């Protein structure tokens, strides 16, 4: 019995040492929470804000700095790529289809083997194959707007001219890129999702921040007004938009062609009830 | 004692040569040279 206790205590002491070491002897880095889909507030962004967004993605969601850093040696440092891009297009080893520095940068994130910097290719492929993944899919999954933001950031970083335009359309949701199903939506929520109202408006569960808040629109507007707002958006411009004043040409004009009558009626009745 | 040291020195030289050849061969197999050229 005595030896059993000695053994037991010995083992518990060892275990406690390991547990304590892991808790106190090692820096307790708190890993980032799983990425949530961010609604990009593009319409009201200035170029500086767009570049800042690129910076945030570059150092965060894009996980670029995991490899593109000066010490690891796994991927080229990107400080000057915004201006080198032009030279790359003329390089004999360039295999891609880009015709401008901006296109080159976009292509380099998706078709990563179009040009592989010397010394950074997959071992044994003689720098013809890149180990970099396609950032628009898979674990990183940047949307086209996010990629544009990173391009803007890289161009600014190199001191080159920022040629990227801020996308005016709402970006596609990362995981909902499939074409709309053929059958008409059956509930107001389905209509809202199908026509991406939430990209700009606060409506239902969505939290868009470009167009007027529709969560209580039924308190101030009637059916006729709302029907017109969907079918002919520029007819009456709302007074209050988040950030900047509402402007004509912001809301898509083709809902009249896309929506079925039943979907329209469902949506209008839903909004009228939202008080 | 003498015989041990004598054998040791000879064996050391042979081993060193062997390992050098091994290094060169194995690095070559991976498409690289033993010494790094910039």
């Amino acid at each position, binding site marked *: 019995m005595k*030896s*059993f206790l*000695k*053994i*037991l205590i*010995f*083992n518990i002491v*060892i*275990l406690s040492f*390991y*547990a304590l*070491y*892991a*808790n*106190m002897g*090692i*820096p*307790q*880095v708190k*890993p980032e*929470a*799983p990425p949530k889909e961010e609604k990009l507030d593009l319409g009201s962004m200035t170029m500086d804000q767009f570049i800042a967004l690129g910076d945030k993605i570059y150092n965060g969601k894009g*996980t670029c700095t*995991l*490899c593109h850093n000066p*010490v*690891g*040696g*796994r991927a080229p440092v990107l400080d000057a790529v915004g201006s080198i891009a032009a030279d790359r297009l003329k390089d004999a080893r360039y295999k891609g289809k880009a015709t401008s520095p901006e296109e080159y940068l976009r292509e380099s994130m998706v078709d990563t083997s179009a040009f592989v910097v010397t*010394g950074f290719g997959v*071992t044994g492929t003689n720098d013809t194959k890149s*180990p*970099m*993944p396609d950032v628009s*899919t898979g*674990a*990183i999954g940047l949307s086209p707007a996010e990629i544009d933001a990173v391009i803007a950031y890289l161009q600014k970083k190199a001191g080159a001219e920022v040629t990227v335009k801020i996308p005016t359309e709402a970006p596609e949701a990362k*995981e909902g890129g499939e074409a709309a199903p053929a059958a008409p939506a059956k509930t107001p929520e389905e209509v809202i999702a199908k026509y991406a109202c939430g990209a700009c408006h606060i409506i239902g569960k969505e939290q868009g921040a470009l167009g007027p808040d529709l969560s209580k629109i039924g308190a101030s507007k009637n059916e006729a007004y709302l029907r017109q707002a969907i079918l002919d958006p520029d007819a009456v411009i709302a007074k209050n938009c988040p950030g900047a004043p509402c402007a004509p040409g912001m809301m898509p004009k083709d809902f009249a062609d896309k929506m079925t009558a039943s979907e329209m009626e469902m949506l209008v009745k839903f909004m009228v009830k939202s008080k | 004692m003498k*015989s*041990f*040291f004598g*054998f*040791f*020195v*000879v*064996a*050391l030289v042979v*081993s*060193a040569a*062997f*390992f*050098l050849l*091994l*290094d060169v061969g*194995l*690095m070559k*197999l*991976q498409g*690289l040279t033993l010494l*790094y050229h910039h």
Partner: protein
Amino acid sequence: MILTGIKKVTCLTLLFLLFIAWGGPHVSLQFSGVTVANAEEYAAKSEGAATEAAPAKAEGEKKAEYPPAPKLTEADYPKVKGFNGRIMIWLAAQLHLWFAAFVLAVPIFVLILEGIGMATKDERYDKMAYEFIKVSLTAYSITAIFGGLLVFSLIIFYPDFMKYMTGLFSSTMLAYAFLFFAESASLYIYYYGWHWLHDGFRKWVHLTIGLILNGVGTTLMFLANAWVTFMMSPGGVDPAGAFQGDHWAVIHNFLWNPLNLHRVIANIAYGGSVIGAYAAYKFLSATTKEDRAHYDWMGYTANVIAVSGLLPLPFAGYWLTKEMYAYSQQMGITLMGGIFAWLFIIQAVLIGALFLSANYYLWCGMARSQGAVRYTKYIKYIAVAIIGSFLVWFTPHTLVMTNQELKALGGPYHKYLGPLGIMPAKNTAVNIMILFTYLSFMLYRRCNKIATVSWAPAGNAAQAAIYVAAIANIVFLGVYHGYFTNTPFKVAASVPQVVSTLFVIIFCAIIDAFMYKGAKEVAPLQWGKVPDRSQYALFMLAISFTWLMGLMGYIRSGIRQHWHVYTIMRDNSVDAYTPTIGYAAQVVTLATMIFMAIVIFIFWLSNISAKKAH
């Protein structure tokens, strides 16, 4: 004479046929792609090669037959009051793995021991083999219990994930379930029939059953490995997760074989260490000299098994990590350069503990023979080399620093100590540790003998020379490539380092085998004459191995981060976050304590079963 020959040929043929039977599942998995369900689709595909319309039709059919991975929300994960689903699965899976590793490993060395017993006609080996298989029998049912708990927990807490997985893996899961009939049958016949099948030709039959047991067990593990590696490096599905028709591609994904190899070797090492703990426990509670001698010998044998499994393990792990990098640079870098990097420092500390315990046990063991006195003076040098290597092994690369510290250091890395944190230094350290451990083993092996061959001084000189040359070579490769070259060179330099180590071990083993032929036994090994503290080294080995396996299991599972199936099926549960290292360590420690409690229970059972009626 002829009759004996015929018997031998018969069994060899039997063995051969059974090898085929074992290999069958592996080979047939390759051809299991075409089933009734997708035969139509295959026909459409092959016919459609010439025409435009048919491929489109096949596409549509494919989409209809095999849906993509579901997109889940938090609401899709059932909650059970009082239970945290993630922790349940974590504990059930880890405990299942520990017992499964043990239950797979024991038949491997029992088979080998039985073989040695047959070859040397030494009954002690056979008796010891029988004792090992007896211990593993209770562990077998506990493995199954945790397996059942794991499956139930997965169904309860992650039903949609399980639906997706069973859709893909139904054939392997059924095969897995049915194979257990073979596993149980062979294990029980092997154990219960041990004495009945003890003599003459029957012994060959018994050995064959042991071989089948190993084959079935390994196949079971390979099947389960397919599920787990699919989650990490999915193959055979499109980016949305829809099955592409080829079962073999799903099973034979990137990480399948590296994990298979790693787990086979690690199981052996782990199984050896658990038996070692069993022997240590029995030794310390032994009351007679015979028992002490018996359990001392058992502990020694178990330790040899554990250490021989331990030595190639870093390289199997290195291949596993290399394949992870090849599959996804991002996953590889998150593993070793990102948030999981610090875990490898903890791993380093544990491996240091393992090497030190293994060596300490060998040094203590030298007390069994008077002849060891002439070698004890070398122990301190070996200790210095191992501790020095351990310090390099455990030096981190990236330190979390304040701005002042950054300024004082002149950058994020120290000019000379920084490279100690990267692979060339680590490889150098581990190769040196392995070499010096082997040296301890060599000294132990010769402590009770004197070589009588005439060329003994030359033989010793050759061994000493190869050691010195190899160490110099390994250090040169590590220092030169670590400080003066770039990444491809650094990675490639590990190969000549490993080969140098392996060469030394093989060369010295061969020289020893010849040099000590007909050697004089000056001071025979007195089994049982070993200090009690040596047994604590065996416990240290077992508990460190267990905890290390838990930690590594966490890393393997955690590297998927917020994915059920990496890049294909997102984990949207409330527990999708990656926890801190401290938290993970606490769960692993809890699991290890549960494991210890059950193992104590098993050891106690073996005690009471030996007790006679009052």
